[in-house]
């Protein structure tokens, strides 16, 4: 890969019990400024890999470089600083349920931008919430009063609060109906367009979304990278597992790579 790299995983291995390796030597480069989707069957280590990129899990062996820095060579203070350059949309948004939408969206700024006055923080949060399409009438509501789609929007606004260089999405469409799934997919794409220069990493098992949105796709299997490349590479692949995954994974009536062009 000749372009700049946002995340580099080198021979990443992870076992929780010392016997079964969830990740068994993952070598991967995620390009800067692009949308990369990480796909694969359930239990292939997609979310575990994401947690390693975020520094939430320590690898059993191997190296993780994020924006040119080895995560586990850093001091705690450096790691905290690095994390402010990352934004994450969790599977179920992980909003703080005792805080209102506005408090959730301003929380990262409250922690890391003490130079901002409360009013300035709120104004910035309003901009982010508007960017993800949330109606201002919901700003003072608690997460429990919001629908699944709205929660994802708030989660995304919160992830965008500190203008991260890398945005990571952990199964963003899990548990949503097909219409809402497309809405969230579009939201990811629109957000990537609006925040020019940012890198997006989407962990998903939704093939349709992966092919519609991504510039680069990584397929994991048995704790390693089975195939990585542009969507066309997958379409042309002769690998039996890739073929099987592609044949089973598309939503009914959807077409794969060709749909990407239409959407974009």
């Amino acid at each position, binding site marked *: 890969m000749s372009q700049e790299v946002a995340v580099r995983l080198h021979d990443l291995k992870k076992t929780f019990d010392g016997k079964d390796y969830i990740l068994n030597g993952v070598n991967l480069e995620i390009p800067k400024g692009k949308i990369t989707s990480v796909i694969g069957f359930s239990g292939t280590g997609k979310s575990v890999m994401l947690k390693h990129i975020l520094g939430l899990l320590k690898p059993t062996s191997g190296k993780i470089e994020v924006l040119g820095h080895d995560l586990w060579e850093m001091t705690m203070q450096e790691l905290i600083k690095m*994390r402010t350059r990352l934004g994450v949309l969790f599977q179920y948004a*992980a909003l703080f*349920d005792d805080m209102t939408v506005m408090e959730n969206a301003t929380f990262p700024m409250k922690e890391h931008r003490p130079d901002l006055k409360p009013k300035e923080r709120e104004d910035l949060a309003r901009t982010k919430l508007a960017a993800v399409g949330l109606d201002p009438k919901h700003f003072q509501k608690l997460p429990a009063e919001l629908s699944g789609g709205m929660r994802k929007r708030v989660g995304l606004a919160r992830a965008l609060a500190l203008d991260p260089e890398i945005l990571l999405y952990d199964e963003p469409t899990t548990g949503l109906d097909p219409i809402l799934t497309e809405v969230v997919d579009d939201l990811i794409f629109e957000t990537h367009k609006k925040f020019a220069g940012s890198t997006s990493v989407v962990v998903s098992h939704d093939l349709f979304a992966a092919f519609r949105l991504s510039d680069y796709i990584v397929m994991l299997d048995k704790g390693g990278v089975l195939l990585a490349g542009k969507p066309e590479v997958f379409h042309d692949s002769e690998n039996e597992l890739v073929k099987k995954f592609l044949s089973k994974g598309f939503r009914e009536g959807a077409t794969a790579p060709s749909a990407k062009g239409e959407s974009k």
Partner: protein
Amino acid sequence: MIQVWRDNRERISASIDEFFIDIAKGINQFFVDCGRACIFFYQSVILVFSRPFRFEEIIKHMEFVGNKSVVIIVMTSTFTGLALAYQIYLGFKLVNAVNLVGPTVGMGITRELGPVLTGLIVAARAGGAMAARLGTMRVSEQIDALEVMGVDPKQYLVSPRIIAAVITMPLLCAIFDFVAMMGAHFLCIDVLGLDQAIFWDKIQLWIKPGDIFQGLLKAGVFGVTFAAVCTNRGFNATGGAKGVGEATNQGVVNSMVLIIILNFLMTSFIRFFYAIMGWA
């Protein structure tokens, strides 16, 4: 009978083994939990002194642990004072020593019942809520979210709760002592007709400030205990709603057992210390 025993000997002895193994496992788990809570407590408390200082969070949790426990403390202490005074009155009446009901109730309340009951009540109410809250945050990835936002979850979630418990528990214990004594006073003077002057005179004579302080000290230690145990269980909860339920249950049960054990150890230590200092 012997034949039945012979036929089922292996099954019966396996059941007996299992019974004792379960007990041993339970005891082992209890000590493992205590050890983990100690390490967790140490890691969390040193974070209190690191920036950013979380005064706002401490106040918020003090309000939850303290203010919201006042009503239940007042209710239980009133009836504890009434019941204890009545029982002691009945006993002392037999030996014609009803003048000593006041100081005896006072000693029992300030040294033992005040801190222990306050500890148990607040551990059940606030400790359970702490474990459930942190457990829910853990399983719904809110703690992970904090971490990836560059916020130390222990410093943000655990340290303020422990500090809030340490500060508010002695205050709640003081309220317990006061209200329980008011209950005892009401029963002894207004209902049983004891002499008010003698009642207070004997209390003044027998109850030393050290009795009250040792109770408050115990309450502070019990605050640390239940806050460390319950936050540790909640913070490390796994396995969805079931895991949160188990963490809450274990947190409260372990806290209560520890409070009772620590109370005895502290009583012994304090009496020993007072004896050395010549205060006893």
